[in-house]
């Protein structure tokens, strides 16, 4: 595709690139120092190369759950990672399922209140989260099961659905956009052949919007994975986020250990960064077009 005049000064282009690179330096520096420090005996954040002495001890300690200042108590970091992943996968699943259903209805079905619902969803998306969380927590308290053995399960389910609820409005709009892009004729021909809407949705449209579904899954997963507020408020089990929150105050000598935990927590983000750039940009251009 023709993008720009080829005969033009490369100088400005280089200058612009350098300018953006310069502006990105703090961002780049801050993240890479964290990753580097996790492999070093001392923190690298002071920018001096002397503090870098390579070691994988931090990683071993983190994975074994050894935090010096908690003495003999081991923190089962694998369990925390599992908890984090459970929440993230749960959120991804719930968000995708619900929005695949509602996105279809809003894209393809004409009913009274459709426009209102679409507008209302946008309003919800922008609704102050903090105004909700107080009420959501009260609801949690009121519906907590009395038997202690069920509390853990309940809190997982609750945090997943509550967190997913925050993403449902946006995800519905995104899904609607994906459905909008499928030609109507495909659907009509199936309906003329006698299929119900539910069947058309299941057998014809869902396979066609697979890339969109993948995008929403990723979107939901990252939302659940990165969450701090909801897991610390509702979940009785620790996650990577609450682990880092609680253990930051370790003394200087243990900082690289936290850096390793942070890097571990950052890992999926980095992996998705390297593998699914297109998908990421797609979800984040969010709902609005043109």
């Amino acid at each position, binding site marked *: 595709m023709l993008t720009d005049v080829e005969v033009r000064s490369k100088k400005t282009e280089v200058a612009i690139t350098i300018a953006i690179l310069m502006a990105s330096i703090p961002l780049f*520096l801050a993240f890479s120092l964290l990753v580097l420090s996790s492999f070093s005996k001392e923190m690298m954040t002071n920018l001096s190369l002397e503090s870098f002495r390579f070691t994988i001890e931090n990683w071993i300690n983190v994975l074994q759950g050894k935090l010096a200042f908690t003495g003999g108590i081991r923190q089962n970091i694998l369990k925390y990672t599992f908890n984090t992943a459970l929440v993230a996968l749960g959120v991804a699943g719930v968000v995708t399922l619900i929005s695949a259903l509602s996105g279809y209805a809003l894209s393809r079905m004409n009913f009274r209140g459709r426009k209102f619902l679409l507008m209302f969803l946008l309003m919800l998306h922008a609704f102050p989260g903090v105004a909700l969380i107080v009420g959501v927590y009260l609801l949690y308290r009121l519906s907590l099961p009395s038997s202690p053995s069920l509390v853990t399960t309940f809190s997982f389910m609750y945090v997943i*659905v509550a967190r997913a609820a925050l993403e449902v409005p946006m995800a519905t709009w995104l899904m609607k956009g994906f459905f909008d892009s499928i030609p109507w004729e495909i659907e009509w021909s199936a309906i003329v052949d006698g299929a119900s809407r539910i069947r058309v949705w299941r057998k014809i449209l869902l396979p066609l919007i697979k890339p969109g579904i993948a995008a929403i899954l990723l979107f939901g997963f990252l939302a659940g994975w990165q969450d701090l507020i909801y897991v610390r408020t509702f979940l009785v089990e620790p996650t990577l986020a609450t682990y880092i929150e609680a253990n930051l105050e370790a003394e200087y000598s243990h900082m690289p250990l936290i850096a390793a935990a942070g890097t571990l927590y950052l890992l999926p983000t980095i992996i998705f960064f390297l593998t699914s750039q297109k998908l990421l940009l797609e979800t984040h*251009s*969010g709902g*609005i077009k043109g």
Partner: protein
Amino acid sequence: MKKYSNLFQLSFFLTPALVIIIVFYLLPLVLTVYMSFTPIRNWNTERYLSQFIGSYNYYRIYHMVKYDPIFRQVMINTIIFVLITLIVNVFGGLLISLATYFINEKSSSTLRLVWLLPRMSPIAVYSLVWYYFFHGSEIGTLNSLLLKLGIIDKPIVLGQGVIPWGPWSIIVFINGLVGVSFGMIVFSSALSHIPRELVIAARVDGATNWSISRKILIPMIRWHILYVFTWQLLSLITSYAHTFLLIEWGLVNRDYGTTLSLYVFLTAFGRGEQDQGLAAAAATILAIIGTVLGFLTLKILKFERMIAKPRGDI
């Protein structure tokens, strides 16, 4: 018969979403408003939830606005934070998307991806990264940089020592980076939909990057600029997650780093004395502000016009 089956199908598709909305938006909202009329504290629901104290919590807020220096500082923080971050977000996003528009596709998408990092990282890691960056000792990247350059001779404790601009600049910086990526994505996607011929035609006529941006690109994405502006305004008023840990970890001064929504959160869930009645009252006020602003935004942006009717009569 047909009507009945249509209704059945519609409810098949919409019920889950409606249930979620009712349970996790509408019901909590009612509960929050209800709580704001009770003296509930420390989540002691048995004791307080059935007591009704009228508008006392709202009166307390009114009183705090007038006389409580800490709360007044929270208000000032909120205003400063929202205004400056908003400007940083909109202009930063615009600047990056325009700049990357003029460089080759490959480097521009890589660069844009780097700027997505703040939005995509786990909040705890993102906070951690900046915790080290702004740390008030030699291990803080900023401090050691300034020390090396000889600009300062001993570390400065930016978030606690330099009042009020130290904490302010940290929270603006950290939230600004998150917001910049939003503007950047929206603008870049809007720019990519402008036919390239327009730009090439302007180039043939002798336009520079600057005049192309000013005369063609920016006017053509006016709607998107307004969209990002209003949307970011709304989300800045209500965002607190990215500041929360920095204050808890002591990087940023509590009094000068707390904004209204964080105040609500800390009042309801923070360490020490919790006062959910007060928090609920403040949350209700925030919800009203959010609803009004959101409604205005939708009207201004004429979102309704973008909603097309489904085709056919099936």
